[in-house]
């Protein structure tokens, strides 16, 4: 057996592999494995000194007016989760492909991950936290429970916000239309049947709710 001078752990070439170094390395790589989103969020919160430009933004969120000074890169999704601690709105793909981050902006559903908070200045946003309360659920929330419209629950806030938009935008006419107009929300558990039934069940009550609010 010959000893290779190129061995990466060779102490005289690369320095001693210490336990502390190993732990630091492991921690760094697990942080990386947690996904680029956290890193991106911290970058967007001004943690990166090269981040640069900030912008002043006013938004009405769940009925209350708020003002922020934000890194311009902050998306509405970053804003509600990181600044408002409203973590009901979920990070899924972070690229507009899954619908987990769906919120209502001026009453219509959007992917909050793809909209800069700066571009929503002056507008009004509703998240899942603004839809119902623990004591008085929104009819769509009740319908999801009654119809088993979820399994793991991760996509559910986005599904429910999208379902409300689907109804109020006038596209919950029948099952085929509901399926077409809910297709921007993926459910990896496959609860689609229950979701479709929930939207159909809560349609009329949701329209009444929309008129009242």
């Amino acid at each position, binding site marked *: 057996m010959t000893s290779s001078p190129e061995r990466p752990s060779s102490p005289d070439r690369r320095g001693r592999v210490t336990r502390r170094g190993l732990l630091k390395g492991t921690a760094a790589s697990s942080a990386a494995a947690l996904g680029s989103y956290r890193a*991106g969020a911290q*970058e*967007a919160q001004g943690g*990166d000194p*090269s*981040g*640069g*430009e900030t*912008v002043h933004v006013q938004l009405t969120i769940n009925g209350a007016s708020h003002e922020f000074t934000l890194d*311009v*890169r902050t*998306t509405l999704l970053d804003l509600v989760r990181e600044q408002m601690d409203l973590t009901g709105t979920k990070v899924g793909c*972070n*690229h*507009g492909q899954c*619908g987990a981050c*769906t919120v209502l902006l001026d009453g*219509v*559903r*959007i*992917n909050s991950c*793809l*909209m*800069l908070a*700066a*571009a929503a200045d002056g507008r009004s946003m509703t998240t899942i936290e603004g839809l119902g309360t623990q004591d008085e659920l929104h009819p769509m929330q009740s319908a999801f429970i009654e119809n088993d419209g979820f399994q793991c629950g991760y996509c559910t806030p986005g599904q429910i916000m*999208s379902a409300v*938009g*689907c109804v109020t*935008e006038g*596209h919950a006419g029948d099952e085929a239309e509901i*399926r*077409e*107009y*809910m*297709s*921007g*929300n993926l459910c990896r558990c496959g609860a689609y049947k229950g979701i479709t039934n929930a939207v159909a069940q809560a349609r009329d009550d949701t329209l009444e709710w929309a008129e009242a609010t």
Partner: protein
Amino acid sequence: MRPFNYQRPANAEEAVAMVDPMGVAGQGGAFLAGGTTIIDLMKLHVVTPPSLTDLGPVGLDEIEEGNDGTLHVGARVTMAKAAEHPAFRDRAPVLSEALWKAASAQLRNVATLGGNVLQRTRCPYFRDNVSPCNKRDPGSGCAAIGGINRLLAVLGTSEQCIANYAGDWANALILFDATVETMSGDGGREIPFADLHVLPEDHPERETVLGDDELITGYRLKIPGWARRSLYVKARDRDSYAFALASAAVALDMDGDTVREARIGLGGVATVPWRAREAEEFLSGQSLTEETAMRAGEIAFDGAQPYEHNAFKVPLGRNAVAKGLLDAASLDLAGEAQQ
């Protein structure tokens, strides 16, 4: 996302004055409309504009009809609004169907028609920001030609690029001799929509004839009465919310069973929005049967160049054309009120 400067102009004139197009390889300042393409690509670092000029405050978000029946469509009309506008839905259903069969409801609520026709390719090698890609990094090569090219183009390709044009609405708009209205530092101009996109050839990084500070402000088009007989066939990997593997936009002017005029656009299979003019010419004066519809599909794909994984797009595309023609011909419009 890389840092950028955020700018809010009050109107379109200010927007083109402040967009700051200086840059290299398309990485100059960019306009921000709905953002559903550019924010996605900025997160991937595929595009890294030094500034974004937000078109939010500039208006341009109405569809208006002139006295002579010409439609003027603002560039910031959303896909959702346009899909449900009676001018499209009732008078040229292909222009509505190509919209509601695209993207998701959430995306259509913010994505605009100006940005929609400029949507970037979904070629995975363009998006991965690592592979050689002449579109993203001119001169670096094309990883798609010898790679996994199932989703990519078979028409209008070059040895430098086989990235397909990903959108749907443009394949329908190209049927109607529409005009693109633009504004830039040099003033404004009108461009025939069919001339907006350019083939990749030796410069796939260049996708349109637009200058770096040139903004699409709207479209002008006149919808012929017979465009009620139009539709959009879209074949994809799942029933909804997926890009076209192959699509056909079809509008037919029929005299009984005989074709007076046919217009055919193709999607999912070409590097740019594609008008199948030879197939249209073949159909003119023919009676429309399963045989002539299939023949039109074959002609539409004459000259197609399939690659290792996307040869299936040729028969799929031919069949989409034939299905579009036959379905359009059999639309029962008699029962509907005349416009």
